[in-house]
């Protein structure tokens, strides 16, 4: 009886063993957690697919394993040795192919604009007669101009004929492999034809004083890769503004205890999430994605908002689903739960996917405006900083208000500056005019059910009212 790494979720087919809970001779039950796998942004507990006595452990902590890889051999066991059911992943030969090492781009809606092409198996054309690989003279000419050896390109047409599309795929693969080579050392396993990216020169910092070296965690690498990718692909613009949160701060103080009584923490973030959905509905382009492959803008009719969570290991962005359909109380509770789960790194990969817009709230730490990086394939992100009591002149009278800096970064390919400003104003107005009735908990159960339709109209009204003030 063999236990293998099951399929972990889309785009995630490998990870590092960070803890191992069984040793040889142990008895394991079916579904008992046998090891934990650190995988991009999550730590996944791996259950035993069958029960039995461990006769051999094939992995150790620190091993990089991929889907289908053998981890345990069980002997005897109470379980009837059934062949793997259809729902189980077909065991694949253990391998650490270059494909597995490549970044898995989480693309919930559609294939990412520039997905990593499947790594071609190393290929070398040979001809005893010294004949050039089968390709039209025009294709050969292009390859020559680009310095591509056609003998390395596998042709997709009959007789192995290489067409322009094959050449394009090959070049894209080379480019992606070269790009990921820096982030993933595994790229060293890429075929010999992949020109290795010149290694970044290592500086000996110990010349100037003592140093400590720590390898990058896989999460750190993933963040680095993701940020680089977003930064490279998206022309960013950041629009700053300030939101008057004096009133809602008081309300959160006032209603906070009631929430707490029911096991939820009322935070400004939850309120901002709601306000954002209101603005997103008014400006659907901020809830869209650019499909570079088809040249289409994909408008999403759902509102799944990512919330950046600061964990010990680094930034993780879990996604809260259907914000538009949930009450502030539900959001508050969910937010608390998922943030905690994320900090403990128990959040699943699925819970990190499918976001349509992201909020990064640094208010708990302090600081002023900053420039968040858009979480591709989303097109905008709202950065929130700590509100500060400031003197404000209104109607020629000096007043003191708590002003919260917000910074909206957006993809200028999709969104123009004027809309960026309008959108951030809309968010500000929605926060400032957040209806007290939505915060109040009285008769929550009855209210919840009618929430979806009602909330919208109420909010719009409220916002409009604020505007006139």
């Amino acid at each position, binding site marked *: 009886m063999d236990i293998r790494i099951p399929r972990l979720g889309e785009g995630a087919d490998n990870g590092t063993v960070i803890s191992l809970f069984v040793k040889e001779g142990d008895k394991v039950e079916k579904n008992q957690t046998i090891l934990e796998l650190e995988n991009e942004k999550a730590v996944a507990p791996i259950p035993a697919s069958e029960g039995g006595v461990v006769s051999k452990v094939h992995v150790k902590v620190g091993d990089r394993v991929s889907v289908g890889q053998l981890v345990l051999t069980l002997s005897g066991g109470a379980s009837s040795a059934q062949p793997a059911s259809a729902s189980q992943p077909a065991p694949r030969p253990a391998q650490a192919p270059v494909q597995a090492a490549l970044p898995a781009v989480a693309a919930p809606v559609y294939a990412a604009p520039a997905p990593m092409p499947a790594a071609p198996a190393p290929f070398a054309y040979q001809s005893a*007669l010294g004949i050039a*690989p*089968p*390709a039209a*003279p025009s294709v050969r000419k292009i390859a020559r*101009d680009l310095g591509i050896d056609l003998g390395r390109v596998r042709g997709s047409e*009959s*007789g192995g*004929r290489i067409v322009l599309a094959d050449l394009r795929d090959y070049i894209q693969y080379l480019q992606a492999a070269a790009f990921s080579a820096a982030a993933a050392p595994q790229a060293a396993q890429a075929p010999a034809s992949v020109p290795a990216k010149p290694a970044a020169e290592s500086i000996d910092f110990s010349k100037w004083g003592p140093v400590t070296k720590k390898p990058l965690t896989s999460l750190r690498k993933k963040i680095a890769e993701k940020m680089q990718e977003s930064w490279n692909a998206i022309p960013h613009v950041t629009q700053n503004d300030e939101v008057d949160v004096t009133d809602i701060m008081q309300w959160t103080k006032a209603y906070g205890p009631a929430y707490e009584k029911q096991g939820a923490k009322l935070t400004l973030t939850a309120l901002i999430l709601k306000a954002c959905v209101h603005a997103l509905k008014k400006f659907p382009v901020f809830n869209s994605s650019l499909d570079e492959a088809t040249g289409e803008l994909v408008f999403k009719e759902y509102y799944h908002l990512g919330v950046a969570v600061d964990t010990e290991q680094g930034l993780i962005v879990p996604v809260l689903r259907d914000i538009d359909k949930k009450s502030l109380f539900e959001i508050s509770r969910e937010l608390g739960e998922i943030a905690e789960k994320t900090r403990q790194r128990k959040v699943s990969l699925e819970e990190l996917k499918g976001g349509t817009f992201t909020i990064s709230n640094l208010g708990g730490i302090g600081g002023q405006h900053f420039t968040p990086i858009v979480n591709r394939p989303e097109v905008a992100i709202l950065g929130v900083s700590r509100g500060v009591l400031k003197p404000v002149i209104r109607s020629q009278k000096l007043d003191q208000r708590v002003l919260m800096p917000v910074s909206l970064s957006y993809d200028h390919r999709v969104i123009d500056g004027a809309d960026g400003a309008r959108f951030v104003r809309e968010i500000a107005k929605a926060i400032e005019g957040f209806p007290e009735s939505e915060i109040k908990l009285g008769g929550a159960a009855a209210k919840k059910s009618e929430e979806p339709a009602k909330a919208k109209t109420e909010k719009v009204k409220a916002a409009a009212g604020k505007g006139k003030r």
Partner: protein
Amino acid sequence: MNPIQTDIVVLGAGPGGYAAAFYAADKGKKVILVERENRLGGVCLNRGCIPSKTLLHGTKLIKEARESEFRGITFGEPKIDLAKMRSWKESIIEKLSGGIRSLAARRSVEIMTGRGYFEDSKTLRVETAEGQKFIQFDKAIIAVGSKPAMPAAFDLGNPRIMTSTEALEIEEIPQDLLIVGGGYIGLELGTVYATLGSRIVLVEAMDAILAGADPDLVRPVAKYAHEHFKEVRVKTKVLKMATHKKQIQVVMDVDGQKKEELYDRVLVSVGRASNSADLGLKNTKVQVDEKGFIKVNEHQQTSDESIYAVGDCVGGVLLAHKASKEARIAVEVITGETSVFESLIPAVVFTDPEVAWCGVTESEARKKGVAVTTVKFPWGASGRALTFDRPDGMTKLVVDPETERILGVGIVGHGAGELISEGVLAIEMGATVSDLASCVHPHPTLSETLMESAEMFFGHATHSFSRSQHKEESAEPQHAS
């Protein structure tokens, strides 16, 4: 005298030279084309391809008229006016040569008539009728071509011992003509003279005529030669020639036996030699090999960075279309492209019937021990071939059995030279047999034989029946149309 400045000077106005000059001018270069003869076009136009094909057309008429009696068409004995035939041939050459001149003028390519001589790697001296001129060039392309080789032992200074140059002038129709060399020149001119009425003995040192072509493609040509020439002798070497009154006395070794005979004329067609001598190459860094061919790389660059060379003078197959392609490569490299010479060069022999091939030949694959599958479609099964009574043809594909890619095409038969280009396209495009079989070919044409041979590969050619697939031995084409 101030030297003339130019971007590119091209030396020689044959199919390599004028192609280079025109292409360079089209790419915006200032070009001077230097030609020692008054008439442009080089050997191809003046003493090669064009005059020989003109004469072959004339003699084909004689032959067809003669052989039409059984078709119910009878002509009288043809009267041949050699002078008129020559001037007809000249008129065609004149027309084509004039065409090149006017194309040059329209491109503002300056033509300078005179011998060119390299003073150094940047200067060409030209001996023109108006005196010496000096050209200072950025790049030079040498395209001086080749001339018929005449071994010293045969060079008696007797006009009855001819090369192709003289033979194409057809001063007279000799009664007994010896042709030394069984290559394409000897066979093409032999065909002309045989039809005009000469008794031809053709001798070849090797054991077969048309070395280089697959034996099965040569067979119909050999058959024709055996029928229309007095004799074809292989493994035969000419040992000595001497003037004997109005004839030439020839001593030869025919497969070990000595023979002494008298001929009215002798055509020596034993190969061609590069015209690279007397160009002043010693004043440059250009290197030549032991046979006098200029050494070039795949970019047509000589050892001298400012000098390129194309065509017959660099060796390889001595064919006009090879020269023209090399010319384009040279110009592209000069203008900064990354071109290399990698094209396959089709060969055509304008015998009767014609032989043409391109890509890998069956013999070459066998020699290199590479497994290939061949399919052969005999023209006896081609309706079109039967309409003009020429079933003596065959279309052959050389195929990679693994990928089914077409590696080579060989054709023997009437008009093979026109048919071969489809094979070139198929090979250059990396086509498979199935690609060729899927293309509809018009009926009734000879081009169908290409499609049908491709179908034969799969064992389902319409006009051929094969008991076991993929084995050409068992394919038995049937007459039908």
